[in-house]
């Protein structure tokens, strides 16, 4: 475990460094723009289509952070999931608004059929049927929210592929909320401050009138820390976090060994969050 943790920290450090001079290989805004970028159709590596892999195979180069959620660890331990959620919301000053209409959530629990409407059918196993699945922003490789945003307040961080937000630029048009096929975004319908019980001064609070969502803990990665939800599950391996494009990373190994699914792959956004169910 200790060893694993060190490996992670190395990765996180590399992330920060890579940000300084990483070659700009990450295309900021997927397919719509890909044809405009001069490179002659690099994405259509014909062979990657050949083997019946279908879509979703092409991806941007450079560091691309992702997450594998191992549901087997959560099936019998919903409390662990609650801890992860609480850790995230505490770390990011996410207000606790009870009313469904105005609620704000970065990571939350939902049913399998809600998380995976495209994979759902009525013959599910008991554990899948009766367990809560965590959902959060997928930090998509081809994020439709970024395409929609008219001010670049939502953007892809080139150094690590995180879909990030600038709360000071956001005009609150909520186009990104309509564009996200995962319902990952929340809007501040009112001043959130009265609904924050414990305030974390290390993370900026938001004003009313802006959108927010999971930021893959980019502020913690910068300090060499794991994401808060990953840390809350430390030792269990329930959430694995790392660079999807590094074949040596732990996450790549897990993805290589285990069968995983993504939420709504048909939307073409290429999510970076994978689930072992």
């Amino acid at each position, binding site marked *: 475990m200790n060893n694993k943790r060190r490996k992670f920290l190395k990765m996180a450090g590399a992330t920060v460094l890579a940000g300084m001079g990483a070659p700009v290989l990450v295309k900021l805004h997927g397919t719509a723009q890909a044809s405009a970028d001069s490179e002659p159709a690099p994405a259509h590596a014909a062979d990657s289509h050949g083997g019946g892999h279908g879509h979703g195979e092409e991806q941007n180069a450079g560091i691309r952070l992702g997450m594998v959620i191992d549901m087997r660890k959560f099936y019998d331990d919903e409390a662990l999931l609650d801890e992860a959620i609480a850790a995230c919301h505490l770390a990011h000053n996410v207000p606790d608004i009870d009313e469904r209409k105005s609620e704000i959530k970065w990571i939350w629990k939902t049913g399998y059929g809600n998380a995976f409407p495209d994979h759902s059918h009525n013959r599910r196993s008991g554990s899948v049927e009766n367990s809560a699945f965590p959902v959060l922003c997928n930090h998509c490789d081809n994020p439709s929210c970024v*395409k929609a945003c008219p*001010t670049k307040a939502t953007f892809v961080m080139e150094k690590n592929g995180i879909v990030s937000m600038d709360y000071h630029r956001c005009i609150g048009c909520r*186009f990104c909320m*309509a564009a996200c096929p995962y*319902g990952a975004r929340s809007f501040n319908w009112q001043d959130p401050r009265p609904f924050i019980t414990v305030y974390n001064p290390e993370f900026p609070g938001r004003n*009313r009138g802006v959108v927010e969502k999971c930021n893959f803990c980019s502020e913690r990665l910068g300090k060499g820390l794991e994401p808060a939800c990953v840390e809350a599950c430390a030792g269990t391996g329930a959430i694995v976090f790392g660079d999807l494009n590094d074949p040596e990373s732990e996450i790549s190994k897990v993805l290589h060994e285990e069968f995983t699914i993504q939420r709504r792959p048909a939307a073409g956004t290429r999510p970076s969050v994978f689930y072992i169910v």
Partner: protein
Amino acid sequence: MIEKTLKGKPAYWIWLAILASVIAVGWACYFRQYVFGLGLTGMSRDVSWGLYISQFTFLVGVAAGGLMLVLPYYIHNYKEFGRITILGEFLAISALVMCLMFIMADLGQPLRGLNVIFYPTPYSMLFWDMCVLWGYLLLNLLCGWVILTSERKQVPPPKWIYFFVAISIPFAVSIHTVTAMLYCGLPGRHFWLSAIIAPRFLASAFAAGPSLILIACLIMRKYANFDAGETAMRKLTTIIMYAVIINTFFFLLEFFVGFYSEVPGHMHSLQYLFFGLEHHGEVYNNLVPFMWIATIFNFVGLGVFAYMKIAKVFDYRLVGFGSVLVFLALWADKGLGFVFAGFVPNPLEEVTEYYPTLNEIGITLGIWATGILLLTLLYKIAIGVEHEVEQ
């Protein structure tokens, strides 16, 4: 020419006073929303756009609908529209002003609105929508004003203005096409993700705009001593009739695709709109009455116009009746159903219904009243000039 707005019969002033008081209520409501935030509306995390954006969408269509007067007159040289083309241009101006106000009312951070210009983002359709809306607004201001000024001086309009009239035609198409693209390019929203949205928007726009102009013509015929001419009005009813037929056809195609393919995502929103959506034992159907009333209005309106054609009759009351029905039907289609149903169900297949709040309705009415006030003043000027020329 502005001075033409300062003289009028008592009815004119009463009308303006009514509008002004609605506007005042609207501002009071907006002040409340500005202080508290958009939480004062009925919008939610699931239905994140409401009345403001739906009115915006509908009014872009009304603005584009003016094209149905400009095109025959300037391109096909259809002289009968000579007296009313200016009405189409002025309608576009008022509708666009309302559009921009609805956008501002909808922003969570209205003071940052200019960020769209400071950080132009060409891959966002909202950026392009802003460009074409402003472009079309300026074009109509320019063309409307120059042409009316020359009419007043009884000289032919300067040649260069026809250049701008010509570009205003593709612009009219583009405003509604780009507005459709706000919706139809979003993955995961099946109801909107359809290539027929833009053509359907245009078809309904070409009915909604002219029917509003017909209504205005009838009102002005009665109260302002302005006659658009029977031939022109007849022609407009023909245009409206065909546009409604095409719009209905497109809509029925959506039905076919959804219910014949039985792909759930393509059926859900339509089910929600017309039959109610059942979900976990609960039925969600708050838009069903609106949609069926709109359907009835749509077909009765169509029937009225068709009857006038077939029986070769012309009756101002029938024209008014048909236009009001069609206008209301299209308003319910685009100004309510289209936007709200797109959010049902949400991406996690949960259902949240949207009910606008009183405060939100107050702001909405205030903006409509502002637009109608502007339209009244502009039409007053246009008619004033026509009367002056006739004397």
